């Protein structure tokens, strides 16, 4: 896990209150929704809120393919690195 991926994993845990999971338990290539951490659309909204607060990123469903961005911790981390406000 890269430091950037760790930061995203920690953010997700905090944003959606997964306090019973530790960062080390997260597989960065596993799907974030449904099969993996079992998150729903409200969680997606909460994660988008955190991305906005921490990195100034405004998530819109028209951005590339939202499903690909939220596919895994690794893909979300790549997206953040490319799009975060300096």
């Amino acid at each position, binding site marked *: 896990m890269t430091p950037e991926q760790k930061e995203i994993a920690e953010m997700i845990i905090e944003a959606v209150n*997964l306090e*019973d999971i530790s960062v080390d338990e997260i597989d960065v290539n596993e799907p974030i*929704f449904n099969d993996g951490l*079992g998150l*729903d659309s409200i969680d997606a*909204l909460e994660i988008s809120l955190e991305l*906005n607060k921490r990195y100034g990123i405004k998530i*819109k*469903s028209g951005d590339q393919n939202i499903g690909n961005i939220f596919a895994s911790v690794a893909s979300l981390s790549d997206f953040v690195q490319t799009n975060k406000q300096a």
Partner: protein
Amino acid sequence: MSSSAQSIDSTIKGLLSSDPFMVLEHHTLTRPQILSAAYYLSLALPSKPIVFNLYTQRDSFLVMLLAVAMKDGVSILPPDTAENTLTQLFHSAVSETAGSVFLAVEQGQYASLEGHEALRFKSIDFTPLYAKPLVEEALLCSAFEKALVAPIWLFTSGSTGKPKRVVKTWQEMMLLALQAIKRFELMQPKCFVATVPSQHMFGLETTIFWPLFSKASIWAGRPIFAEDIKSVLAQSIHCPVLISTPLHLKKLTQFELDWKVSDLMVISATAPLNHELAETIQSQMQAKIFEVYGCTETASIASRETLQSDDWSLYDGNQLLIEEESHFCEVHLPSLSKSYPLQDEVESLSDKSSFKLLGRRSDLIKVAGKRSSLMNLNHHLLGVDGVKDGVFWVDDDGERLQALVVSDLTTQQIKQALSKSLDPVFLPRPIRFVTKIPRNALGKVQYQAVKKLMSKGS
């Protein structure tokens, strides 16, 4: 002609209007276009089809819903899309009918279930259906009239853990919608945008039946993210109406966006909206905030303007029948000539057309617009192999579920097992492990003690 036959007749004529109805990203569809597409699709469907309608796009959802009705079929709107729920409902549908049963889904959705040994999938390309010429008006009207008797199956979560089926015909949905249309003055053009799915009663009436039979248009997508909702609302050509839930609205306000919409109306349901949140929405979005009250059996029956009144006003004509001693309450809906028991205890106010909500009759819970009961959830939790004892618990906000569990399994193992039978919104977070669940001599969970254990851990 009776007055109800007259209103049915004039409502069907209203479907021929060429006003914008379904608003898509780059174009809009009128009611006759949607009806024509449904008519063409119905010609391609097998006779009396049984269709699980899982579409998230409202236009696809409605075209399929109507096509199935035109073909004398049954539309099934499952309570959730967990694999076990779908498989169970699918099996019971197959065993109850000789008709062809399939799941109608968008391409790529529920990919994990594709190729499932028991479930049959169908994806349809709607674009060519919309490109065909409009069907002649008389033919559309007669096809629609025939469709009015077709049933739609919705579900509530029963206390035994088995979803309870509620059947409503198209005609019933239409007559119920006419009351709400009157209440919210929807014969004046408005633009609906909804964050809720169409598969539950509140979503079904607000995203499909209210707009279909009024002059309101509906945004065909289901926007989740704040920026999406903002941009869709800003595109509205008439007064925008946002249909959502307290949980979603609360998150939206945390973005502290400059919404820049005018004349916005917010309609919320599924849980009471507290005043503090309502005030925040009002000041951030410059919106008027309304709530509707109802259940799957009745659809919405009453409303209130949250910051104006704590009392609920029944839609015109609806009546409450309350037994004084037991407080047992029924609502009589003249539109359907039927009465239904309410799950809540209510107090009728002297004007008879309004009431106060006193509280839940049972342990029903709603999370993110989806309904279950603690009893049902506990039943699934205790069904997990390796869970010795366990209990679900809702925090005071009523927003998220937690669970207290006696088990050697890991959190992940329990969640994975639960996710096979429960919708993701009902997965507990966090799960706390204990050596013993506080129960009294009769085995009943002592919630005060549970609360203490939960707060200790956080």
